[in-house]
């Protein structure tokens, strides 16, 4: 065995495991940047008609930004046309990154450690009990625990939902079937924004959990190598 030079920041015993493939890391950070731009330009577009429903009747749906009030620092594009051009340009890397990521998961078999399946329900409850301190021992887990699987499956579905609702309001006549599926143009526009709020909430929770529960996972998403508390593979 060769000795690895000691990293003073880490316990000497922390084993290093190869955690994330380069495709996953690239997709993760590309997606983070693209999504930030999509949301900022989307908020710029939203200001042109800051309500949900029609001109004569605002739907009784929860909307924290009804009437506007989105700070300039949170917007991209400067005016409606600028916002549209950013949004429709960034839609390409957003969709392509998502598809490359899904294809990688499918062909590498990585999906097995990420997809939440019925058999993950029990471990997810155990994990939740642990987080609520109703269970003392951390449940055994593979690469990800069952709650993580639920989160990472959900976020991919949310990405797909945001893309589909986006296409529906982009071409509502050509993609009339999709609009119908979503309950009409006005509702499709609402679902598109509901996805935004969910993305923001997810990201906040995601970042908080990374730093409080498993900071080593941040480094793993950058370098690919994981030296934290949960080194097991699936």
């Amino acid at each position, binding site marked *: 065995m060769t000795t690895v030079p000691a990293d003073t920041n880490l316990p000497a015993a922390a084993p290093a495991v190869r955690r994330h493939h380069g495709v996953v890391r690239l997709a993760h950070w590309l997606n983070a940047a693209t999504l930030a731009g999509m949301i900022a330009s989307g908020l710029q577009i939203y200001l042109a008609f800051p309500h949900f429903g029609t001109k004569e009747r605002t739907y009784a749906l929860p909307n924290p930004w009804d009437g506007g009030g989105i700070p300039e620092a949170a917007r991209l594009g400067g005016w409606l046309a600028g916002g549209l051009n950013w949004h*429709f*340009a960034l839609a390409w890397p957003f969709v392509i990154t998502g598809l490359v990521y899904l294809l990688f998961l499918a062909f590498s078999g990585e999906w097995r450690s990420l997809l939440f399946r019925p058999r993950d329900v029990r471990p997810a409850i155990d994990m939740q009990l642990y987080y609520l301190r109703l269970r003392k021992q951390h449940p055994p887990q593979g690469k990800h625990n069952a709650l993580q699987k639920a989160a990472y499956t959900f976020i991919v579905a949310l990405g797909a939902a945001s893309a589909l609702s986006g296409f529906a309001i982009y071409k509502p006549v050509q993609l009339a079937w999709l609009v119908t599926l979503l309950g009409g143009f006005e509702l499709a526009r609402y679902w598109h924004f509901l996805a935004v709020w969910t993305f923001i909430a997810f990201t906040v929770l995601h970042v908080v959990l990374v730093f409080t529960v498993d900071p080593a996972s941040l480094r793993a998403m950058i370098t690919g190598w994981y030296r934290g508390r949960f080194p097991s593979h699936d």
Partner: protein
Amino acid sequence: MTDPHTPGLARRDFLRLGLVAGPASLVAACGWDGGPLIKPRLQAISRLNDWVGEKILLSPNRLAPTYATSARSTTVPAYFISDDVPTLAQPSAWSLEVGGLVRRPTRLTLAMLQALPSVTYTVKHHCVEGWTAIATWTGVPVATVAALVEPLPAARHLRFDSFDDGYFNGWDLTSGMHAQTILAYAFNDRPLSPERGAPLRLYSPIKLGYKLTKYLTRMSFTAERPGGYWEDQGYPWLGGV
């Protein structure tokens, strides 16, 4: 002062710095609409999106859904770019000039247009701002007028001009020849009011509102792709829905 060896800053710190500074400087430089560096690239992608929208997503024969007249909206905003509602000094002297790359250029009075077979439909209007409104429109299909003037094979686009302070639009021929693309002279069963583009305006449920030229003066067939009032300022050229 700064130590040239910057002890304490490891390679990964620079990496982290880059992760933050990269997007931050990008946003700072592009807070507007991309600036001189990125705006042209955004415009180029917009042209690509126009191509996808016209050649892949647009079905020439798909009709926009129609509604019962009871579904009409009570509020249908109407925009124009002039300071005041554009009106004609002499409405009776108005006629539509139809020309460009055609075999038989002509001028059509409102009476002549109203004598042609008309189309009436109640459809949903999509504004680029994000709102919609349902209304009934009556007019002559652009394709019917095209048949009268016989476009030359070189004609690839349409240009619609108005007396609203130079407002104009360029169209792809496929959308122009769509069965629901009409030269409209009535709104909700009544002659167009000045706010709605009297005496004649372009209407189609397969385009966003800013593509629907009001206060028409001329319709021309062209080989080159005409721009448009908003399109030349950065709005997507195709504007198809």
